[in-house]
């Protein structure tokens, strides 16, 4: 008997009589999602900017990151980061990656992206700094709302990011920039 069949047989014999699967009955509540998202993301070390549209957002980011040498803007530089062409290791010197998210969560400051928006999965981690453009209409209140929006979406890789990479492993002192991006700026678009 294979380990698989053995494990399944032992588990089946050990598990108790079937218990019901509960409904997730958390009711959505009304809240100021922009205010909460801003407060929470700022509280966990991120930054929130505002812009009328994508063009203005890119303009502001360009001004704010003048000393950055390698900047990747998606989807504009989609070809450069193309999955089939490029070895992810070549992204090692990216200073700033600008991506777009179509979903963000007020209660925890997280943005949601899939590999469609990332082109390379490692991009938001390996870049020194991360900027995310998010239309205000993409904000939802809680993770329940977020998963309702994600639904049965098919993706290869999906990711919630809430703030810059961080650690407090040394005596509980919070340090930003552990292994992933050192900063995270979300630009909310009107």
């Amino acid at each position, binding site marked *: 008997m294979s380990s698989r069949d053995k494990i399944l047989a032992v*588990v089946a014999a050990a598990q108790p009589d079937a218990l019901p699967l509960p409904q997730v009955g958390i009711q959505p509540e009304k809240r100021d999602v922009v205010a909460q998202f801003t407060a929470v993301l700022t509280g966990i070390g991120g930054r929130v900017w505002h812009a009328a549209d994508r063009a203005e957002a890119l303009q502001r980011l360009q001004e704010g990151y003048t000393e950055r040498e390698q900047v990747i803007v998606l989807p504009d530089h989609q070809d450069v980061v193309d999955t089939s062409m490029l070895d992810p290791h070549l992204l090692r010197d990216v200073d700033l990656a600008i991506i777009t998210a179509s979903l963000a969560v007020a209660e925890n400051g997280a943005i949601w992206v899939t590999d469609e928006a990332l082109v390379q999965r490692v991009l938001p981690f390996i870049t020194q700094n991360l900027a995310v453009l998010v239309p205000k209409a993409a904000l939802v209140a809680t993770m329940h709302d977020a998963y309702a929006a994600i639904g049965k979406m098919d993706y290869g890789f999906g990711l919630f990011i809430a703030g810059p990479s961080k650690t407090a492993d040394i005596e509980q002192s919070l340090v930003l920039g552990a292994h992933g991006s050192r900063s995270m700026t979300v630009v909310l678009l009107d």
Partner: protein
Amino acid sequence: MAVVNGKDHAALADVFNKDKARVGWHDETLWFVRQKRDKAAHGIAEWEQLRQTASDIKDHVLSRLSQYLVEFETRAKENGIIVHWAADAEEHNSIVLGLLQKAGVNRMVKSKSMLTEECHLNEFLAKKGIEVIDTDLGERIVQLAEEAPSHIVLPCIHKKKEEIGALFHKHLGTPAGNADPQFLTEAARQHLREKFLTRRVALTGVNFAIAETGEFVVCTNEGNADMGAHLADVHIACMGIEKIIPKREHLGVFLRLLARSATGQPVTTYNSHFKKPRKGAELHVVLVDNGRSRQLARKDFRNSLKCIRCAACFNTCPVYRRSGGHSYHTAIAGPIGSILAPNLDMRQYADLPFASTLCGSCSNVCPVKIDIHDQLYKWRQVLGKEGYVPKSKELGMKGLAMAVNNATMFSVGGKLGRWVMRNTPFVVNNGMNPWFKQREMPEAPKESFREWYAKNRKEG
């Protein structure tokens, strides 16, 4: 029983308790983390409803685990994930070794996985000539120190920054005497970035695996799991079979609870959903039993398998905070570890269910509502019945048994007990009290009722 150089939890706690200042710091720091958890929990009006829902979902999963495992496997395979099954630690380790050999490499990066600690994967691979670099900062620190993690979320919480500075000076060449957390973290970032960029196999743990979609989720704050996985040709994800949840939407419940319970953060920084392998890369999942099915069959202890490894029960536990993770001499320390470990080996871990005051604080904070302190109490009964009661407890229990059978023994034992308490309180409070090092012992009465009665009968 009992096991680090022949020492049990009480003896190992004594070692930790030698450094009073450190015990105080450890205690306060973890209490601070507990308070952050409280603040985060109180910020969510429906917190208790979330806990109940999470608990009910997990109960349901355990009652249909075999079906969900098959569903997960089917979906994962459709997604292009290669699924492996390991009945025990040995099989798990040899599967990982086989994948490394197939990839033709002798080194890999690994992010936090308590399961691989439980299976002693690193030691096994080292013997086979494979170098494993732990990439979570805290885990890298204990790895350099040649120690095990002392906490499942904060692996090096027992270490002071000066010790970490000295370790980094020795191994990473940082300037002697520099113990600045910011500086040391940056040094680790540079050191590990080189590893991420050069290793072709990455191993990660799994926080949740979704039966409905065949995907799995890995949560980190540092981003180390992703740096490893997305740069490697082969990603191996190892998970205990109890990590399954039915639907993707249930992540809403668990991700809301996990980080808030663990560190008081609203969510972990990175919550990565791995559904299909990256183009040109391999994605493996190893499903591991290693005693979980045995625990599932134990009615009184099965719901310990609901644990989502947030460590809230560690941070709140007065015994853990004052005895340190290493005193538990098992991969998963703390209250929940003390329930899981005896299932793996009753003899070796018979002392752990006694490393508790049964105050119940653990059960109160647990996000999946495991009745932790009740289970600790029940393990004591089971271990007693099976003859595994630890030596330090055995004496008292034997004494009790004899007292019931023999009135003279009762009188001698009682007298001796009182004599020890009155004349050597230090011994009772520190060395021989195996439950709780700093618990106040009751003041011993000078005369027992029996002595008083005998004396007064004579005199009267």
